[in-house]
């Protein structure tokens, strides 16, 4: 039978290793710590089609992450998706005519909102609405359009 001391040390090592594994899961595996943008300001935008965007998708400007999508609701008046995003408080110099587009990172990657600053003098602030938006590219629609334009081209040749 082992001494109490050895048992206590082994249990201590066990608990420490378990907690270390939790830390690995938190910091290395999951998005812990980068999920919530605290104390940021909110912007809204309407999109015709959001594609695969979802809450907690990143919002970036020039490829740098500046915030995240907080909620997506369907606006029954305009038949569009109303997207609310939270921008980190240190990124507070977006011109008021900034445009928002939905992009895909890579061909099959996740979708995110890209902000392109305009040239206006005043800046966007909490609760502002982004006028200029560009919807997500939906591959099926693209293929559909391509097929239609192909057949139209053939008709014209005849």
């Amino acid at each position, binding site marked *: 039978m082992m001494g*109490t001391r050895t*048992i*206590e040390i*082994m*249990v201590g*090592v*066990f*608990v420490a*290793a*378990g*907690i*270390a*594994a*939790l830390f*690995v*899961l*938190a910091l*290395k*595996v*999951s*998005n*812990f710590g*980068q*999920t919530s943008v605290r104390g940021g300001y909110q912007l809204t935008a309407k999109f015709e089609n959001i594609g695969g965007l979802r809450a*907690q998708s*990143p919002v970036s400007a020039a490829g740098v992450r500046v915030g995240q999508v907080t909620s997506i609701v369907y606006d029954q008046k305009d038949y569009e998706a109303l997207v609310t995003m939270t921008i980190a408080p240190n990124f507070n110099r977006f011109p008021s005519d900034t445009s928002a587009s939905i992009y895909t990172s*890579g061909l*099959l*990657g*996740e979708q995110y909102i890209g902000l392109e600053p305009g040239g206006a003098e005043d800046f966007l602030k909490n609760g502002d609405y982004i006028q200029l938006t560009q919807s997500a590219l939906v591959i099926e629609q693209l293929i559909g359009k391509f097929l239609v334009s192909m057949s139209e081209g053939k008709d014209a040749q005849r």
Partner: protein
Amino acid sequence: MIGLLQNIGRSSIGFLERTGRATLFFLRVLAGVPALMLQFRLVLAQLYSVGVLSVLVIVVSGLTVGMVLGLQMYNTLAKFGAASSLGPVIALALVRELGPVVAALLFAGRAGSALTAEIGLMKATEQLSGMEMMAVDPVRRIVAPRLVAGILSMPLLAAMFSAVGVLGGYLVGVGMLGVDAGAYWAQMQAAVDWRGDVINGIIKSVFFGMIVTWIAVFEGYDAVPTTEGVSRATTRTVVYASLAVLLFDFMLTALMFGDTLI
């Protein structure tokens, strides 16, 4: 015909009786838990035999499960040119399902069977009745520390399993098959949610720890006090605990991820 119906009825009544006894026993054990705060030494000794001694089997299985996942997923993902999503696939599979479930199954085999055999033998050799003679409640003294140790160590073991599994996937995916290391971690972090995936997996493993240890200590305490009875009880522990883990996993998954799984 009547005989068949009688058999079905008898086994149903027997099952209900056992479930009822197990529930009452569980409540009795729970009532003994608060007093343990004063005698944490008892729990510590059980943490050693239930938790520490299970680490090796958990870590080795986690590593191999992660490596096999990496190998198998890579073949399918590479067909679609999506080998860089290897990280999220491995991490989500491990953190949500395989970590808690496989760790609990191994735990039932490694620690659950040992608990049943130990308590069953204590009963067979009349140590439990000896304690009762000395006015020591064996449920509080023997069973409660084991239950607490099981509930405490299961989430730690499941977390180790998942973490080591992700590492095993990394070794195979990045080391052997040439997936980009940055893509492996970055896509994983983008896909795995701390609260939605990791915490839910931990909650699952707490449940599993409770169910497995509960079944183990009850089977031991309820065993027929003979050599054969103890061996049967040990087998029953592993079978029932494994089935219960799989069944509860389905229910917990439906509750937790039912709306996010499309």
